[in-house]
């Protein structure tokens, strides 16, 4: 912070005891102070610090991808993360599922009047740390404040862009009958961690959200097998929903083997207790990969070497099926359909 800026706001933002009020979104001095002493301070990068209404950067030749994601999770702080880190990971993952290298993020905040500044600072610090770890800078943003009762503390929308290397073509409509279906690790951790931290569900677990940025795992996978057909992060609706989307996009069926789907025993137990099916529970640090059978072994090997893919597994294969059904051979010895999620298992999980 320069001496000049400190003169501009002789009294610092009352982070410890202060709260968000309507002036923080009014466009006046209070808003400028919030942006400077909170967002600029922690996100700290050259493009943001120019303090323009837009960030400016040169574009490369080739294909770029862009994705946006609103985050409304409740509670804001949960085991293994918070809305800040989640909003960075979520958008990086959406960009990276195209095989792209994520470059920059933009962040829009909707703050509710009365929200403690101390909590906002915690969230901003967590976002900054997540962005730094991922090597992706937050280069522009926006802040709005709504009246008390019109929001729920804080909502964060992040937008990301990235570039795709030549020769990489990953899309949800490229699954072929005979392809293998892989997942990068255990399923359902995020959803169960959120549920266990909701106050009206009184149970305690040691399960933490798996929230993580997956782009470095994907980069390693692309070195091993540049011809990956599909990548998807099974967030809301879990594995079941993501596979149904892919089956529909590619006009294929899928056959899963329940025994080979990795699920943390504690997640299984919590789901049993709550009457949930872990296949439908959200993840924030896992990916599904569909590839030609010839690429399976090299992909699995490279995934298992990465810290975010240690428990990667082959869980099934793509089949020819005009109805687009995802079916599963159950551990019990029968078979069932793994359908789209109807309704919602649990609201506001991301």
């Amino acid at each position: 912070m320069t001496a000049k800026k400190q003169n501009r706001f002789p009294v610092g933002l009352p982070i410890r005891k202060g709260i968000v009020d309507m002036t923080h979104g009014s466009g006046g001095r209070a808003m400028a102070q919030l942006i400077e002493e909170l967002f600029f301070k922690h996100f700290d990068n050259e493009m943001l610090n120019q303090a323009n209404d837009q960030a400016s950067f040169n574009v490369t030749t080739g294909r770029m991808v862009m994705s946006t994601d609103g985050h409304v999770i409740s509670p804001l702080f949960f085991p293994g993360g918070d809305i800040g880190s989640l909003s960075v990971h979520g958008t990086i993952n959406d960009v990276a599922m195209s095989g792209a290298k994520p470059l920059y993020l933009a962040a829009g905040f909707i703050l509710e009047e009365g929200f403690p500044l101390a909590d906002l600072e915690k969230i901003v610090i967590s976002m900054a740390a997540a962005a730094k770890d991922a090597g992706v800078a937050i280069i522009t943003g926006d802040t709005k404040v709504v009246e008390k009762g019109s929001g729920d503390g804080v909502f964060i929308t992040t937008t990301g862009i990235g570039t795709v290397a030549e020769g990489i073509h990953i899309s949800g409509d490229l699954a072929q009958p005979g392809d293998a279906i892989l997942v990068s690790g255990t399923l359902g951790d995020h959803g169960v961690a959120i549920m266990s931290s909701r106050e009206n569900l009184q149970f305690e677990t040691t399960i933490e959200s798996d929230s993580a940025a997956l782009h470095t795992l994907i980069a390693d996978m692309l070195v091993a097998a540049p011809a990956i057909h599909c990548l998807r992060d099974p967030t809301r609706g879990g594995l079941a929903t993501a596979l149904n989307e892919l089956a529909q996009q590619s006009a294929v069926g899928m056959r899963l083997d329940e025994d080979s789907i990795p699920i943390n025993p504690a997640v299984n137990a919590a789901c049993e207790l709550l009457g949930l099916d872990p296949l439908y529970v959200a993840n924030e640090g896992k990916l599904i990969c569909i590839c030609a059978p010839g690429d399976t072994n090299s992909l699995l090997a490279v995934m298992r070497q990465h810290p975010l893919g240690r428990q990667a597994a082959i869980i099934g294969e793509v089949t020819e099926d005009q109805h687009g059904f995802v079916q599963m051979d159950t551990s019990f010895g029968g078979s069932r359909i793994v359908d789209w999620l109807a309704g919602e298992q649990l609201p506001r999980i991301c």
Partner: protein
Amino acid sequence: MKYIDEFRNRELAGKLKQSIEKEVVAGQQYNLMEFCGGHTHAIFRYGVQDLMPENVKFIHGPGCPVCVLPIGRIDNVIQLVQQEDVILCTYGDMMRVPASNRMSLLKLKAKGGDIRMVYSTQDALKIARDNPEREVVFFAIGFETTTPPTAVAIKTAHAEDLQNFSVFCNHVLTPAAIQSILESPEVRNMGSVRIDGFFGPSHVSSIIGSLPYEFFAEEFQKPVVIAGFEPLDVMQSALMLIRQINTGRHQVENEYSRVVSREGNLKAQSLVAEVMELRRSFEWRGLGMVPYSALKIKQAYDHFDAEQRFNMPTISASDVKSCECPQILRGAKKPTDCKLFGTVCTPENPMGSCMVSSEGACAAYWTYGRFRQQQHT
């Protein structure tokens, strides 16, 4: 998961499959009705039908509390929220059940109705304590299993003198419903539906015991096996039913002896008896008016009875035309016999109650069993 995985063991399932294959008489049809939605769910989720011989068929019964609640009772709570500005506490399953005029609690909530999803009666009590200036009504539904917690809530509210709490009581009784199915013309006259034996409820029986089934096993000469909700329980119970049928027996047997006793949970029973009493008659979706099949809150606790407190009227509303839920709930038709199934009625847009809860026969068919139909066409 200890104590659970043991009941989902593939090798044991394989052995039971062989035993059942050996036991069934070729050419004879075995129609076994599982009363409970919990069994329906287990059969589909684990693919139990795949392990059964061709001539053993599961008939899905009406044992899904959400499915059997008549539309009029949902209309009742919708009116209540609209007219009395109450906080309505409900189990999540009820939210999407279609009521009259294409309304549902979910839509009412979106329109500003104060409807809170709760996981237990304790949550509802807490909401009442936290909002002393508001009327808080708990929408109580379910069979004998969910009744004791409602009784506890009423007793707690009474002890605390919680003036703003009341219960809209819709608790129903399993034995009366099974009897009604057995007395229905379709079953009695050996017409369209033949039921050779029953899987008795598991959780319900942990409360009421196996004793109440003894009457109709004798009266209607149908075997009953009280079965746990795990897939191996279902297979073992199927084997026990088939053995009874083959030897001409019609007894109440208890496969779920790790939980269910003959007398049941006496403490829970006396708790319920203290707070509630039989209704002379109650409407069930699909079964119509069934005598002595439901409970109401006793006079001594009528301050906590939402029906009394808000003077709630009796509303009789009819199902969507051509919705076959009533026949499906009686086992007289399969979900796929319904014209609406999968066309206009899906879990996303349920027309009838059987499509709403994951325990409903239509939703289970749609979610887990749809591909079988497609494979056969």
